């Protein structure tokens, strides 16, 4: 009998608890949507209501786009994240292949170095890297946003672990067929590593799309701003008066990733939690 009660009681308790938590998690998103849909007068009223009396989302979006060049910022975000990811793959894949499958003097030292570098938090190197970019004269350019991240030791580590699982026979077969070591990386290893590269890609793109610290340091020019920087700038300019358009701008900034996430949750969760195997 007790089990009978248990079988109904437990799922109900589980759902109640999870729904309560889910509500907390979602509140900022709901409030953001709600505020972005309200006209100024409704936002600045001390009476709380979720559904706007007058639906003003389009007006707020229009104002946001008029006050800030949001398209440009989104484009900047795209350029920066894609460049970073492309270069990371270009640098990491050959190195990962060599570390996983080739024998050469110093390989183990190099790999130990890679593992060590994973532990370096990005903020730790900020000052010297900033000085280096200053010396190179590339501060306040796309290059300043991209260059420090072209090396992803984590990417090398990840790919190396993946390549370890690729059978040596496949590589030997490619060599027998006369493919060069460089050719093997791109024509044999890359195709087998697509799932791992995708996961790493999601990890990398999300991290750099959302990055605030580095762009804040190296950028001055408004036209180079990445989305997080732009939304922070927007807030500072409006000095807490224009919440409707500000929330609309926030929606625009988080939308690309959130929408992509909703469409491919499993892949995204896999990608973001890659750090879980560090």
């Amino acid at each position, binding site marked *: 009998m007790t089990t009978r009660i248990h079988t109904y009681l437990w*799922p109900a308790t*589980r759902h109640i608890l999870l729904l309560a938590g*889910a509500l907390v*998690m979602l509140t*900022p*998103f709901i*409030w*953001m949507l709600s505020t972005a849909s309200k006209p100024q007068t409704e936002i*600045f009223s*001390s009476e*709380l209501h979720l559904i706007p009396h007058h639906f003003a989302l389009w007006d707020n979006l229009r104002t946001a786009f008029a006050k800030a060049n949001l398209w440009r910022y989104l484009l900047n975000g795209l350029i920066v994240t894609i460049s970073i990811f492309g270069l990371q793959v270009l640098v990491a894949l*050959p*190195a990962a*292949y060599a570390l996983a499958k*080739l024998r050469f*003097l110093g*390989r183990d030292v*190099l790999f130990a*170095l890679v593992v060590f*570098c994973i532990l370096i*938090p990005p903020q*730790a*190197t*900020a*000052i*010297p*890297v*900033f*000085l*280096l970019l200053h010396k190179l004269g590339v501060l306040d350019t796309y290059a300043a946003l991209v260059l*420090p991240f072209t*090396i992803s*030791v984590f990417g090398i580590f990840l790919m190396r672990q993946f390549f370890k699982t690729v059978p040596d026979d*496949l590589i030997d077969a*490619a060599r027998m*067929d*006369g*493919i060069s*070591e460089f050719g093997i*990386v791109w024509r044999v290893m890359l*195709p087998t590593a697509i799932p791992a590269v995708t996961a790493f890609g999601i990890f990398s793109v*999300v991290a750099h799309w*959302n990055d*605030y*610290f580095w762009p*804040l340091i190296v950028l001055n020019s408004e036209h180079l701003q990445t*989305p997080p920087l732009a*939304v922070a700038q927007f*807030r500072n300019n409006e000095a807490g008066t224009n919440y409707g358009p500000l929330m609309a701008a926030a929606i625009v*900034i*988080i939308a690309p990733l*959130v929408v992509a*996430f*909703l469409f491919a*949750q499993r892949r995204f*969760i896999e990608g*973001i*939690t890659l*750090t*879980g195997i560090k």
Partner: protein
Amino acid sequence: MSDAVATLQAVPATARNRVPVFAGSRPAARSAYALVAPAFILMLMMLIGPLAGVIALSFTDYQLGAPSFAWIGLSNYHEMFADRVFWISLKNTLTYVAIVVPGAVALGLGTALLIQSGAGLRSLYRTIYFLPVMATLIAMAIVWEFMLHPQFGLVNGVLRAAGLQGHSWLQERGTALYSLCAIGVWQATGFNMVLFLAGLVSIPKHLYDAAEIDGAESAWSRFCLVTWPLPGPVTLFVVTISAIRSFQVFDTVQVLTKGGPSKSSEVLIYTMYAEGFEFFRSGYGAALTVVFLAFVLLLTLVKSALGNREVHYA
């Protein structure tokens, strides 16, 4: 598929190219060095060099734009340890870590266990709890700022409706840091949940069967026998990574409080940012960075010391 294509295309080259593979390792080693060279150079330039640089800089009085600098030994550190702001900053950072880590780890574990304990709506819940991890933190911080708005914010509105007194959460010394902690927990819970879920899923289902047959009749005894001990390493990992991430807290502080009011939410990385990039005192900023690094290193060491007691899956 495409490697088969590559294979076919490459057939004519066989005769010409087969020498390097069989004739000894030297040409192969040369290509290995060519393959690792770009990564190695960039690693030196962007990671190892700067790491050494930051330590070296911390012993100088270098200021960005200054024509020269001098080695000043431990002066930066003396100044730092004498500075009240540094101690406030350190204390606030540790407070933040001490609140966010247990909070986000416990909630993450609880959520993962709840989700895993039943079959219904698993992926919906997972998606919702993970949403804050995906959303750009800066944008969400601004949303939180408005929710915490003393007059028109949701939080005070709800409190008023409940007959309670609200606060100027981000503008009062007593609440600013804790408000940031709340945002931190909100953001990190989903991430930890997913890591725990992965750990729970990796528990072989047969172990629960075995436990059932061995007489672990209640859900609690199965939890004690199987669930809890097995993701032990996962828990250790989640705690460390949460701690390292919490040590790095910056975005919310920079945009919402700027360390204020009156340094009540000043944290280590923010102090480093202000010294290094607003006042361009690179040497002093470097010294702060070294302190930050020491803490991260300490956490990593603790983790690997504990992590050796690893669980082997049979």
